[in-house]
């Protein structure tokens, strides 16, 4: 039953998004704009600084993720549908998990476009180790979205939520950004340091486990006034 609720919420978000594609298009275009802005800021004499591609990729993911989180919950606020979700007897952590999976799917889709774009614009060999890259991106995105989904959901009834979301989210997700950027940077080195990659991945996995658990645990008290 728990899994069924997760599935229902996820499928509902997916259907809504497919109808309008609003968040997908705006998030993706915003991410691409970020990449370009950073390209103009950092590329000198046609060359990006060493490891710059890794940083730019993750900055784009973090910024676009914040935008997507805000928009997704703004949509639930418009007809107060989040209230309706909370009024249903369905397990509230299941609602959280459904929303989280939706955000992760959306960001993954954005990353599928972003990675080749960044690789192309910065002549970075991002796609040299696709499996490692996929693992890093997935664990990093889950960690970022786990905290972000909870914060965006709880901020839905706060004033000035648009600006408060990044203010709260970035300091907490610093470990994800550091680990994501560094691990992606390792992939760009000529020789792959697997041991180091494993350290960063372990950190990301631990972060995911701890914060998804914490979010599931605190979602109920945070959503009741």
């Amino acid at each position, binding site marked *: 039953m728990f899994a069924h609720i997760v599935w229902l919420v996820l499928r509902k978000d997916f259907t809504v998004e497919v109808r309008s594609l609003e968040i997908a298009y705006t998030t993706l275009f915003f991410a691409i704009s970020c990449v370009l802005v950073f390209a103009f800021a950092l590329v000198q004499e046609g060359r990006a600084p060493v490891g710059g591609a890794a940083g730019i990729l993750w900055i784009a993911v973090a910024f676009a993720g914040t935008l997507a989180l805000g928009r997704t919950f703004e949509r639930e606020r418009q007809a107060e549908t989040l209230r309706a979700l909370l009024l249903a007897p369905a397990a509230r952590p299941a609602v959280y998990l459904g929303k989280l999976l939706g955000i992760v799917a959306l960001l993954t889709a954005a990353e599928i476009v972003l990675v080749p774009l960044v690789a192309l614009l910065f002549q970075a060999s991002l796609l040299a180790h696709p499996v490692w890259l996929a693992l890093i991106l997935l664990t990093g995105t889950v960690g970022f979205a786990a*905290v972000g989904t*909870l*914060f965006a959901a*709880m*901020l839905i*009834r*706060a*004033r*000035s939520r648009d600006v*408060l979301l990044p*203010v*709260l989210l*970035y*300091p*907490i997700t*610093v*470990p994800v950004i*550091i*680990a994501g950027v*560094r691990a992606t940077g390792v992939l760009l080195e000529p020789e792959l340091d697997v041991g*180091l990659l494993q*350290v*960063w991945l372990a*950190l990301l996995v*631990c*972060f995911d486990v*701890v*914060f998804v658990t*914490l979010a599931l645990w*605190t979602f109920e*008290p*945070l959503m009741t*006034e």
Partner: protein
Amino acid sequence: MPSWFTPLAALCALMFATAPILIAQAPYESTMGLVQKIFYVHLPSAWMFLLAAITCGIASLRYLFRGDPRQDRLAWAAAELAVLFGVLTLVTGPLWARKAWGVWWQWDVRLTSSLMGWMVAVAYLLLRRYGGPGSDKLAAGLALFGIVNVPFVYISVNYWRTIHPTTNVVPTLPTSFGVPLWFSAVTFLLLFVLLLRMRVRLEEQRARVDALYLSMDS
């Protein structure tokens, strides 16, 4: 105010007056010179910063699940003290770093972690200030996440710094300063307790004023 408050405040003032003398007479550290003395302020501030953050986290956890408003007031007071002692830590740290490392800011693991923790504390206060009604619970959630996040920040910054090839050799911080440091630490602890009590009391009074206002019948 409780009966212990005034004597303790007097003691704290006395200790703050004595501390400079003790610090001045402490053994002169030859390689660092005078700037080493900043540690008698820096280390106690950092400890109080940590204590304030932990107090805020635990009080927030209890408020979130038990709903006791006293815990909420304690968390709020502790968050403000975390910002205050955090500023002291973050200002005195670079002052020392300028002399020791030759740069104002070194992405040292402790300095960076402190900065991130301080950011969370500031975010907590911003949320309470601008979040509108109901932000007390949300802030409690943030504090809880912030506390759980501390080891992750520390480990990630540590790896980021130490594995990075351009890391300078950072001189390890001396850890033994003898009596003056402990004297200084106790003084700061007293200040922390007094400020916390005062701040909690202010919120208690506010809550009472609100309750009185609400109990008036029209």
